[in-house]
């Protein structure tokens, strides 16, 4: 059972007129993990999630959720998934509880089970006090939590979260992050789309970087970071130093090309970190007669990965 991927896509194509939203989109999401789809606006994140959630018919390719084809076995797919989109998909005029009971019953729970589960989720997501108020009185963060509760009410095995924190204030965002971590701990498979690198880094065990309707890189956050050279030593030379001499002295440590900024006083050296590296570098520069203002080790962030990969693709 658990060898079947939660989500599998092969060569998905989706065109809107002349715009190509998905352009050979491949993806495999293992069960029981939080998986991040990271990409800028218009990269194809939402389109792919809509295909997986049986809301959109792809023009080409195949997609399966827990082994069920999204086109041929859409009804089976719908029994296993939950979807939370970018907007709170709720009835504004109903109370929070009434919304959950309604979605619960439509998720094929009996009325009793829907009520029980609604109360449990309201409690779990800190909405009990507001449960009997109309949703239109809710704050943005409360709506998202209620929307998420609605996606969870039928006990989905696979949960799609499409940009769950876009537009939320920092507090509400932190709360959503905690909730997603809690879901992961319960063993729910979560496919999360985000345009925030930090969010993918914080939450996702594996990340697919999306650009132009296809996956341009895939792996754990650490794997992706190591793809753009891992760590760098950033060296600020004192004013008027011999940059050539410095480069020569650093060549021994560099695991790639040393880059320098326009005015030459700032060098970035790709390195593989080792004990006492910084000391050795400073000593080597000293011997070469170059004086240094500042040496720091900088780890690649997902931002570096993202910009490097999208630049390659362009």
């Amino acid at each position, binding site marked *: 059972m658990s060898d079947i991927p939660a989500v599998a896509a092969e060569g998905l194509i989706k065109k809107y007129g002349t715009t190509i939203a998905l352009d050979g989109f491949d993806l495999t999401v293992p069960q029981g993990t939080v998986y991040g789809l990271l990409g800028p606006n218009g990269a194809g994140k939402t389109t792919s999630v809509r295909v997986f959630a049986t*809301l959109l018919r792809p023009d080409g390719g195949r997609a399966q959720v827990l082994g069920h084809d999204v086109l041929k076995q859409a009804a089976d797919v719908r029994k296993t998934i939950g979807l939370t989109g970018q907007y709170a998909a709720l009835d504004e*005029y109903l109370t929070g509880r009434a919304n959950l009971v*309604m979605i619960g*019953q439509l*998720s094929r*729970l*009996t009325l009793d089970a829907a009520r029980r589960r609604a109360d449990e989720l309201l409690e779990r997501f800190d909405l009990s006090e507001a449960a009997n108020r*109309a949703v239109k009185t809710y704050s943005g963060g409360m709506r998202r939590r209620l929307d998420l509760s609605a996606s969870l009410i039928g006990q989905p095995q696979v949960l799609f979260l499409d940009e769950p924190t876009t537009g939320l204030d920092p507090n509400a965002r932190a709360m959503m992050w905690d909730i997603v971590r*809690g879901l992961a701990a319960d063993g729910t498979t979560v496919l999360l789309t985000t345009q925030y690198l930090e969010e993918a880094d914080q939450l996702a065990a594996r990340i697919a970087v999306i650009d132009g309707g296809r996956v341009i890189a895939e792996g754990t956050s650490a794997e992706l970071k190591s793809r753009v050279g891992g760590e760098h030593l950033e060296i600020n030379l004192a004013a008027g130093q011999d940059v050539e001499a410095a480069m020569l002295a650093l060549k021994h440590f560099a695991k790639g090309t040393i880059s320098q900024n326009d005015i030459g006083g700032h060098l970035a050296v790709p390195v593989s970190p080792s004990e006492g590296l910084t000391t050795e570098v400073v000593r080597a520069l000293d011997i070469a007669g170059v004086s240094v203002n500042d040496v720091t080790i900088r780890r690649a962030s997902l931002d570096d990965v993202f910009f490097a990969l999208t630049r390659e693709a362009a």
Partner: protein
Amino acid sequence: MTAVTTAADLDFTHGHTQSRLFLTDVWVLIKRAIARIRNEPETLMDVTAMPVIFILMFAYVFGGSIPLPHHGSYHEYLIGGMLGMGLAQTAPGVAVALVSDMHTGLMDRFRSLPMSRWAVLIARSIAELLTQMISAVIVVCVGLAIGWRVHTSAGNVAVALALALLFGYAFTWAGILLGMVLRSPEAAQQLGFIIFLPLTFISSAFVPTQGMPGWLQPVAEWNPMSALAAASRKLFGNPNPAALVHSWPMQHPELAVVAWSVGMLLVFAPLAVRRYRRVALG
């Protein structure tokens, strides 16, 4: 955080028959519409306050200047026309409600659930029928208050009301189709207004068609609104100048209402359902 329920602890209805599941879904969505009315009674303004305002306006402002052949009572004439208007003008509201559900993503949520696909549209049409009944009751009550009377049997009244509701139900599907095609609630509101206002007024709902210019008369006579107005007046035993008009729908208004309603249902319902499927799996 409280203890987590596992799927095994929850009672699912997967074992129920398809038709029972369908009826449950429809019922849950009708309950939603009723709960909304209970929480926001002002959403019923278009079927409650509007007919009252129109009846009073036409009875006491315009009515005195509208001559009827054979000096019939305008107050008695008015109610048959008002019934159709009260029912048909709920259609833009249906469109607005559906477009709003698409807008907020609620429609996407419904589509991603293991629920019956058609329940959403069917439930909306039934909920609308309930509000249309409220509208009919209000028109009848205000009518009685301004001096409208029925001069025939209870059976005739029942037939008239049944025809009116059939007619209203057909218009609901026009509204549903509108809601499936349009993108914004504002557009639905405005287009609904543009379609339904002339539809109501270029008819015998408020004035006899005899007073209209010759080229406009056939348009008004073949307007389904005129057919319902004439059928209601005939069945209530109210002044019915349309009986003097020699066009088929005015001579056979009950048949015309059924033909128009069934025709509209046969055109609009499949188109709406097809559109729903297409939007459902664009």
